């Protein structure tokens, strides 16, 4: 069976996810923790007059959550490793299904396209946000997010593999349409989280995601052809 290819793909993703976890630990989680102090401070003396779309207060709920400190860090690393393995599987799956190769030469390009489709395009409408920032209805945002990723990924595929004018026109339309429709936005942007902290988080998040995706692509470029050859022999 084809377990060797699958294992290779997942391991590439997990390695990139480990790097992502480290970048999070040093650059992103500190900003999240800082934002949470503002979120909680605000919740403490909120009179319910200003913010109608305040995200659910996780702290107030009795639901299970990892303890702050080591436990939370371990869960964050695990989540990043699993997410990255998932991204690697999506990228490799797309290549395998459409009959394209991720090679040592092209791996970084595949990774870059993954970053553009999965992070950059949706971030153009829904910037990575810190806890405590107001946002529109979750389901509406998830739908827009998925639609934007699918449209952008299709556009990149057309631009990479089709040369006909119709393909280029269609690709441009697919890139632009989600942003003409526009991402669901909150009615007001009032938040206790300082804007400087939020913008710092957006930059750091995009940078970390870019690094993770490039690593996924490069690793797949080295490993996937070998795994395919081993499987076939």
């Amino acid at each position: 069976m084809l377990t060797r290819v699958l294992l290779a793909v997942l391991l590439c993703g997990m390695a990139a996810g480990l790097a992502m976890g480290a970048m999070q630990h040093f650059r992103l989680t500190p900003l999240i923790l800082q934002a949470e102090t503002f979120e909680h401070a605000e919740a403490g003396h909120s009179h319910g007059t200003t913010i109608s779309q305040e995200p659910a207060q996780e702290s107030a709920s009795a639901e299970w959550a990892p303890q702050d400190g080591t436990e939370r860090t371990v869960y964050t690393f695990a989540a990043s490793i699993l997410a990255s393995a998932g991204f690697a599987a999506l990228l490799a799956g797309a290549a395998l299904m459409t009959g394209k190769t991720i090679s040592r030469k092209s791996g970084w390009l595949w990774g870059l396209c993954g970053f553009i489709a999965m992070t950059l395009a949706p971030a153009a409408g829904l910037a990575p946000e810190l806890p405590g920032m107001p946002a529109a209805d979750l389901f509406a945002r998830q739908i827009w997010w998925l639609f934007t990723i699918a449209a952008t990924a299709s556009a990149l595929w057309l631009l990479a593999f089709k040369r006909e004018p119709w393909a280029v026109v269609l690709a441009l339309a697919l890139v632009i349409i989600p942003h003409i429709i526009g991402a669901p936005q909150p009615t007001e942007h009032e938040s206790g989280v300082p804007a400087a902290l939020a913008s710092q988080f957006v930059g750091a998040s995009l940078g970390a995601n870019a690094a993770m995706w490039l690593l996924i692509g490069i690793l797949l470029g080295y490993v996937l052809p070998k795994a395919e050859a081993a499987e076939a022999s």
Partner: protein
Amino acid sequence: MTTRSISFPLSVSQRIAIGALCLFLGAFLTWGVGMAQDSRMHNAAHDTRHAIGFPCH
């Protein structure tokens, strides 16, 4: 990203089978970490959801 369908070590049906499995598993993992509404899964993956830019709560 050139098309070299002749040099693939795997057959077309093998590629489709493993490709579909990868896509399914990838979608499952991405959904589980990033989109599942169960509050325990949300809390466990909370910081990663924010860091990766998933639409979160």
